[in-house]
């Protein structure tokens, strides 16, 4: 754990970006245990200075409605930006990376997370999936962040390129696919 913290604090310094990740959790088998969920989802990772919000990584499961999620995640960046600028004033020292629920829609909940280097993660979760509460979402973001840090540590990865890391992909898949 110490190692992870060390990573997230040091290695991501020096670049700023946005990394939205939508994660849509589709069906719910059983609401009590998170491990029983069968999530579907989409991911968007964006990199670049705050005003450059292009996606670094997008994943959405299932893929048939991908476009909708792209729009949704893109629109959610408005709120991310707002929250970041609000946070900049108030919570500089607190290092709260989790932005919480960006905004709800009828069918989905959009959560945000921003690294110290302003890489944004956005996660879109099916509203009906009540198993995923704030804590689960938070830990998922933390996992994403760690994995993203690993991607960044790869010397062959150019910051700003689309993420094609298999490890990252696998981690995202593991989050989006039933764990039961």
């Amino acid at each position, binding site marked *: 754990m110490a190692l992870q913290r060390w990573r997230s604090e040091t290695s991501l310094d020096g670049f700023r970006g946005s990394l939205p990740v939508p994660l849509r959790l589709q069906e719910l088998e059983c609401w009590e245990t998170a491990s029983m969920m069968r999530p579907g989802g989409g991911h968007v990772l964006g990199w*670049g200075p705050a005003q*450059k919000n*292009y996606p670094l990584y997008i994943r959405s499961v299932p893929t048939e409605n991908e*476009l909708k999620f792209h729009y949704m995640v*893109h629109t959610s960046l*408005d709120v991310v930006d*707002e929250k970041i600028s609000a946070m900049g004033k108030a919570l500089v020292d607190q290092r709260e990376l989790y932005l919480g629920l960006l*905004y709800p829609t009828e069918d989905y909940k959009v959560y945000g997370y921003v690294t110290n280097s302003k890489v944004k993660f956005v996660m879109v979760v099916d509203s*009906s999936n009540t198993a995923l509460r704030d804590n689960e979402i938070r830990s998922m973001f933390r996992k994403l962040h760690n994995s993203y840090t690993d991607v960044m540590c790869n010397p062959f990865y150019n910051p700003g*390129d689309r993420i094609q890391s298999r490890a990252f992909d696998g981690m995202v898949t593991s989050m989006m696919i039933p764990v039961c």
Partner: protein
Amino acid sequence: MDASEEPVPPVIYTMENKPIVTCAGDQNLFTSIYPTLSQQLPREPMEWRRSYGRAPKMIHLESNFVQFKEELLPKEGNKALLTFPFLHIYWTECCDTEVYKATVKDDLTKWQNVLKAHSSVDWLIVVVENDAKKKNKTNILPRTSIVDKIRNDFCNKQSDRCVVLSDPLKDSSRTQESWNAFLTKLRTLLLMSFTKNLGKFEDDMRTLREKRTEPGWSFCDYFMVQEELAFVFEMLQQFEDALVQYDELDALFSQYVVNFGAGDGANWLTFFCQPVKSWNGLILRKPIDMEKRGLIQRQEATLLDLRSYLFSRQCTLLLFLQRPWEVAQRALELLHSCVQELKLLEVSVPPGALDCWVFLSCLEVLQRIEGCCDRAQIDSNIAHTVGLWSYATEKLKSLGYLCGLVSEQGPNSEDLNRTVDLLAGLGAERPETANTAQSPYKKLKEALSSVEAFEKHYLDLSHATIEMYTSIGRIRSAKFVGKDLAEFYMRKKSPQKAEIYLQGALKNYLAEGWALPITHTRKQLAECQKHLGQIENYLQTSSLLASDQHLTENEREYFCREILSFANRQADSPGHKIVLPMHSFAQLRDLRFTPPNAVVHVGGVLSVEVTVCSQMPVPVLAEQIAVSVHFSVEKDSYRKTAEWLAKHKTANGVVSFPAETSPFPTSQNSLPALELCEVFERSPSDSSLHTTGIICKNVHMLLRKQESGASLEAPSGAALEAGAHMLKRTAVTLEPGPNAITFRTQAKEPGTYTLRQLCASVGPVWFVLPHIYPLVQYDVYSQEPQLHVEPLADSLLAGIPQKVKFTVTTGHYTVKNGDSLQLSNVEAMLILCHEENRAVIYSNMRAPATGGESTMLGMTEPHGKHKDTQKAGHCMATMDHKVSIDCPWSIYSTVISLTFSMPFRTTHSLLSSGTRKYVQVCVQNLSELDFQLSDSHLVDTGDSTDLRLIPLNTESEQRIHSKQAVFFVWELKWTREPPPSLHCRFSIGFSPASEERLSVPLKPYTYEFQVDNFLTLYTVRAEISPPPGTELCKTGSLCSLEVSVTRLSDLSEVDKDEALTECDDYFSTKLMYEVVDNSSNWAVCGKSSGVISMPVAARATHRVHMEVMPLFAGYLPLPDVRLFKYLPHHSAHSSQLDADSWIENDSLSVDKHVDDQLDSGSVQSRGSTRSVASSEHKGLPMPRLRALPPGQAFNASAGTQVLVIPSQDDHVLEVSVT
């Protein structure tokens, strides 16, 4: 007490609710005090310490004082809190013990009993003391007061339950004190009662909640109970606590719904699952919606009813708490969760009903908030409300689509039926909004009434939403709403209005590189542009879509065919060009020059192979593909130099273009890397550095505005450059993927050509790549014509026909028909021309074009006047001939010098045999060629008829191989006295052995030489005879050597020199002999040389006897006997001598001369004898020696050998084998 006088106060659920305090006892007294009391009670706050660790609160207490009645006391099990009397006060003014005993005590007892019966312990007895009254009866109760009595009678151990209020209506400090004490007491007791009763209530409530898993449990009942608590808190102005009650109810209900969704259904919940029949939205204008509350109480509420009611209460409390923005936020959450819950509970909802409900609710919430905030507040909190606006817009949109209000032809009957059903579900407008012009109800009804009204409302909402989003900087959201609006406009067939929104959205997506939204928006834009008839824009969008990887193959092909079909349609009416940027159509990958250095001479051919990657999904026939070229005149010649080429041109002539990043991250990664170069400027005067710097060569790429990414969409960006220079190809089919297209051009004017644009035309559609970057250039240079003449072989040989190559580098001169080169040559060199020989034009791509002209160059006279200064060694003698050539491009003649080498070296020598003389000529072939020699002649040029040269050569033709020599010998015969010197000319025909018969007669090779003093004057004969008594010579034993020198002729011309002495007509000459054995076979014993005086007369003989000793056994050649002329030292030439010669003049130098005889002869081609003689002229102050010319002394014993036998006492036999 008349109970009927005061009817049970109805529970009025308004904010006027206050905790109830009953008043018993003296009603008139209370009435008189009441105004002050009700005014004073809330004035001071009181700290309320709470149970369960809740934070203490300062609370302003108010009460509703009602007359005490037994009915007011709650019966067992009654959970009503609002009507619960928290405190019972008994008022008395009694100051008379008698009166007290008579009436008041009984009344008090009765009151107490009633309270006890209802186990109510919250009571207070107030004794009001009045000074006026008191004074009257001072004497009656001097010691014990009524208060004491009451305390004694009723307040056992609770003395504080009886308070005294002194002179309440007076304005004195005592009164004030008394009031304060009373109010504090009252407040404390009230709070104690609250704490106790509410605590009890909460406990009961909790107990009830814990029973929720029991079958009969009803949420509605529980709801009513907890709401009671909420009401009380509200009544106590504890809105926060009240809100908590509702939030708990909210959460509980939500949890049940979630559990239900997970299969854990509660029975009571099924009740909420009844089909939605009414969707009249939230009602927030009343503090309490009694209608809905009644439904809940009667357990008839639907889910929407419950939610509506719950939210209306929360809203009310939040507004009390001055948190309107939380209302907005919660409203959005509520609406979303309601929609979700209905879905989860599988409640049947008529289509559109929820949309109506949400729409109405949104507007209701917004209007409610607007109602309690001023404009400025609203404007600064748009972020909170805009979500509702957007949601309402969305819902209205979907209603519009549902009811057929968006289609062009208006709603059909089915749509109308649906509309009627939806309106029916709204019910009648509520009275509280009936008078409001803009009520949500009216709005919705109107919007659904007609297409026009819908449009008006929808546009109003959309514009308002967009404006709000924009004002708070949520550009993306604004664009997204704008896209919906565009869709609407497209449905309404007003693409001109849709376009701006689509463009705006697309620009945004492009700037941020969101591929899928880009594709989708572009597709919409394409349709829009098609409707608008914006041909150029449409074609461009189509081309972008045709190359879009995110579309299906079919869609891509569709858009590609759109372009092609347009191109075909317009093919008939040429003239109008539609210029589109190329990058979507095809991308330039690389470019390859041939020649690779991209430098051609004027007139040369340059080819450019361009690899273009077609993005189209199908093969496209481009009528023309052209590269426009910008021409600039060469300013500095430096660019042509090899140095420049090496520096600037890629080795293989390939220029690669960075792959244009597919529409993906347009913003970040497509930025090219900095291209920097250094600059130094030197001052022209002293070339000192005065400026240095770094120039960024691609500033225009780097400093482009970020937004300009969107300008790619604007077709006007690409202007077709109409340059005079174009590289063209026609009818090229571009297959999907890479295509190689080769352009050829003939270089015309010298200068630098920069490739500027690449364009491909398909019909009237021109795809243009406006700038080819990185910069691609080729250079054309011009050169002065040049003529080179060079032999085909390594070197030219004199005397034989050979080919020379005339290379004409035409440079900028164009060879015309009939142009000729005029050659003026010296006589010694002939130029042979074959008729069939024509100039051949070679075009060499590497070098500038050259015209080659081969001519047979004639032979030169091999003899020529070649220089006497011959180079030593085996180098061939050379001579130069100049050819002057008149070229058509110049008025000046070009003089070219050709160097010919002599193929042969010729030497001669005179051979003697006694008095017979032979002339030997040696011809040495120095060249690499073999020659055929023929017709060798030696003639005497001195035309002395009595001299004959008889050739001893047998063969007339001879082959002389390379680096070999051939000898020719003639015998010299004469009949009369021959001249002292003989001039001869040797001539021999020669021709290259390899070649067949040549058409031209070749001149023979001639060699002239002179032979002097060839007559033999002396014969030298040596003879070795064994020692006497022995037959043979023996090694080690002395033998005698007899040397005889015989004069063969009388005095002749040649003898006349210093050595000749005349004495009485008797001539003698001094000769020196010398016996030398160079091979060390012999040891000469005694004097080996001597001077003899030789009479100049025929047959005069001089004999010398010497002793020699053989050193070896075998046939030994005789030792050499040399003969010199012995010249006296007082020579007339002595003055010419110098010191150097003097040193040389010893016997060794003589030896050398003898040894070098052949060499000196060969070196000196003619007059060799003379030169030898001349060297002898270098006399000494002492007597000098002069070797006799080789012809004058004949060694008769040359070659003879003597057998020497080894001596017997030789123990060592030395055998040398050679």
